[in-house]
């Protein structure tokens, strides 16, 4: 406080010359100076990481550093590489994971085709990334909060999201939990602790950190997991989130699905560093890179990350996988990548094939069961899909609900305007596809 006054005085009144304040420090010798600065840099600037000086001018060169290795448990043939890494999942859990991968596959095929036929407006499949979803989901606790991007259907299925829920959301019919407000695949479920998906990329990442902070304060033992893609990782929001999770010490797992593409943009045009994992350490986040097509590797990584996160240390997992599907139904990926590449990932390196081999080695699965299961799921999805198509959408006046918790006057008046308009002009609108009366 005194020194501040001295500075003010010297500036405004010229009573004390400015250099007089500085001259009191002149007795410093170099070694003392180093100690002081090294201590300051270590403790204040680098949070305990040891600061050192060097007299050699040398830029750290990213290409000379080793890349972060890709953790795996099984090889392409589903064989355990190191028995100490075997999570020893029981038969029931393993089969449930596999069943849901097959279910997701069949759902994707049928809904993709139905979009092509114009029966739903849009769809995004999950082909090639099934292992990431199920490996993650199975190692989380049920009340852990999930923030997703849009290509994480398997996680929802594990939590108990039904084929009906999927179909209702994609049709936006009156059974849709989201009340028909959003585009297809924008799922959400409060009961399943899965925060409703939104289209703007990476916005969920800092939100997930905020929720994790709230859990930390509530001391409720819950952690948050946030999914994002390699493209989303370029958004400013991801930077914001990584940084805040580290400084505010939040119980969160960031799970990045690095599938090689953001629509048509290959990762070579997305970043210049060691993937997304390479950034984690720079933010002070514990980081691992895993084989995203290895369901057991994903399982182990998330399980360990959950343990670390619950001690309020954020974790980053980068799962290396491949987007076998087109980006969405609005995209034809043959315009920017070779079909050979896609074919290899879809057959030889397919995560389902790999897990199936593992199951077979344990004697838990055979080809005959495979055929029956796929057939059964196809039938169920088709049946649900056809039923969903017949369910009407909510009354058009539903469009005014939930903008605010309560409906303000101006929106109430606009609702009345539409209501009046439909009385006279209703025959010009597709009213037969909507329920006849508003629910509230």
């Amino acid at each position, binding site marked *: 406080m005194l020194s501040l006054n001295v500075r003010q005085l010297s500036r405004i009144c010229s009573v004390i010359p400015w250099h007089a304040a500085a001259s009191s420090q002149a007795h410093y010798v170099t070694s003392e100076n180093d100690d002081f600065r090294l201590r300051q840099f270590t403790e204040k600037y680098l949070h305990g990481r040891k600061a050192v000086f060097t007299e050699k001018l040398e830029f750290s060169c990213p290409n000379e550093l080793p890349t972060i290795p890709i953790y795996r448990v099984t090889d392409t043939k589903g064989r355990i590489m190191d028995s100490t890494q075997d999570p020893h999942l029981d038969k029931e859990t393993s089969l449930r994971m596999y069943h849901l991968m097959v279910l997701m596959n069949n759902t994707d095929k049928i809904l993709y085709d139905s979009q092509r036929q114009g029966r739903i407006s849009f769809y995004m499949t999950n082909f090639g990334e099934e292992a990431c979803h199920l490996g993650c989901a199975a190692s989380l606790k049920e009340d852990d909060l999930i923030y997703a991007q849009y290509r994480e259907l398997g996680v929802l299925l594990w939590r108990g999201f039904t084929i009906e829920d999927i179909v209702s959301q994609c049709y936006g019919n009156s059974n849709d939990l989201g009340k028909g407000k959003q585009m297809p695949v924008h799922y959400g479920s409060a009961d399943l602790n899965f925060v409703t998906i*939104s289209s703007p990329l990476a916005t969920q990442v*800092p939100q997930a950190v905020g929720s994790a902070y709230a859990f930390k304060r509530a001391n409720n033992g819950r952690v948050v997991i946030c999914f994002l893609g390699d493209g989303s990782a370029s958004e400013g929001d991801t930077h914001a989130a990584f940084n805040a999770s580290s400084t505010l010490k939040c119980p969160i797992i960031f799970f990045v699905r690095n599938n090689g593409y953001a629509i048509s943009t290959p990762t070579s045009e997305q970043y210049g560093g060691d993937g997304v994992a390479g950034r984690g350490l720079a933010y002070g986040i514990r980081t691992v890179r895993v084989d995203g097509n290895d369901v057991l590797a994903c399982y182990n990584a998330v399980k360990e990350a959950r343990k670390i996160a619950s001690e309020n240390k954020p974790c980053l997992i980068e799962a290396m996988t491949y987007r076998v599907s087109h980006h969405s139904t609005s995209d034809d990926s043959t315009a920017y990548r070779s079909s050979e590449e896609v074919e290899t990932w879809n057959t030889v390196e397919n995560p389902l094939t790999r897990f199936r081999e593992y199951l077979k080695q344990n004697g838990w699965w055979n080809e005959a069961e495979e055929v029956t299961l796929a057939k059964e799921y196809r039938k169920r999805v088709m049946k649900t899909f056809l039923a969903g198509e017949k369910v009407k959408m909510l009354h058009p006046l539903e469009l005014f609900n939930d903008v605010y918790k309560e409906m303000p006057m101006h929106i109430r008046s606009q609702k009345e305007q539409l209501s009046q308009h439909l009385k006279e002009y209703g025959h010009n609108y597709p009213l037969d596809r909507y329920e006849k009366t508003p629910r509230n």
Partner: protein
Amino acid sequence: MALRQSLLVCTELQKAVFQNCARFLSHFKYYPSKSDPALVNANLGEVRNMNLCQAVNNAMDIAMDKDSTACILGEDVAFGGVFRCTVGLLDKYGKDRVFNTPLCEQGIAGFSIGLATAGATAIAEIQFGDYIFPAFDQIVNEAAKYRYRSGNMFNCGKLTIRAASGAVGHGGLYHSQSPEGYFAHASGLKIVYPRGPIQAKGLLLSCIRDDNPCIFLEPKILYRLSAEEVPVADYTVPLSKAESVRKGKDLTMVGWGTQVHVLLEAADLAQKELGVECEVIDLQTILPWDADTVADSVCKTGRLIVSHEAPLTQGFGAEIVSTIQERCFLNLEAPITRICGWDTPFPHVYEPFYLPTKWRILEAIKKLSHF
């Protein structure tokens, strides 16, 4: 001793500089208000003289005291804030409830939405309204649409974002803006802009407790310049309710924030020089706004001036004009007039000529009276 003496000299010198230099003179006279009669009836008891900064601090103190999930976060809020609005709160509520964030507005907004989604009360600070734009996506695409897009399964209603806004005498382009117009296009948000300490405290408490995401814009020039007798107790001022702060029969004027005081002074001038009795309405809530109070007044007076510091084109004044024109067409006796900032960035040395001053308003009153 010598030090003490020179300190005194310094203080005197500073005073002299500030009083005599036109640059530091504010462009308006502050009109203190009395507690709303409704609040007095509630028998709130003790009052304390507070400026806007202290009133905001007091509101947050009450909110934090009564809601253990409430957190205050932003850049530099831990030591008390660059405007001192959060002084003392860290000591009282602990560093896990009052904390600095990294310097990143989109992060502050996103993080706060996440807090609110998880059921905690988030009181976020954006240091200046001018720096809220990096958070625009989080506020407009996320916060405003959270409840709607999830079919009411999730919401961030417990979110309030405070930001210091408006002209301050020498803020230039990036310490002067009033961003309310940008956000008024985003249904799902509530936007509030108080004119003084009594309203600031009551409105901020309403925002914090409202079940919708709110943006609370604090006229930073009033942080220290305003002072009035503010009830110490916990009270709220309702959102979406305008307040008629001066009665008149000839002409209605609508504004918010600091501009209400400019309008009040112009009304006094008009009374004295033109014999025109102006009614002045403080809109208080920009979204959803109280069209009824404005329309009732205009039906009575037949004339309307809307005034705000933000630029004219697409400013929130345009919304008021079109709505009132539609609702009061048969009562209007003159075109509705907007006196606003010019359609330029907010300039540094030209601020006295940029702002919608009492003289520009007086001129408009004169023209409208003779229309």
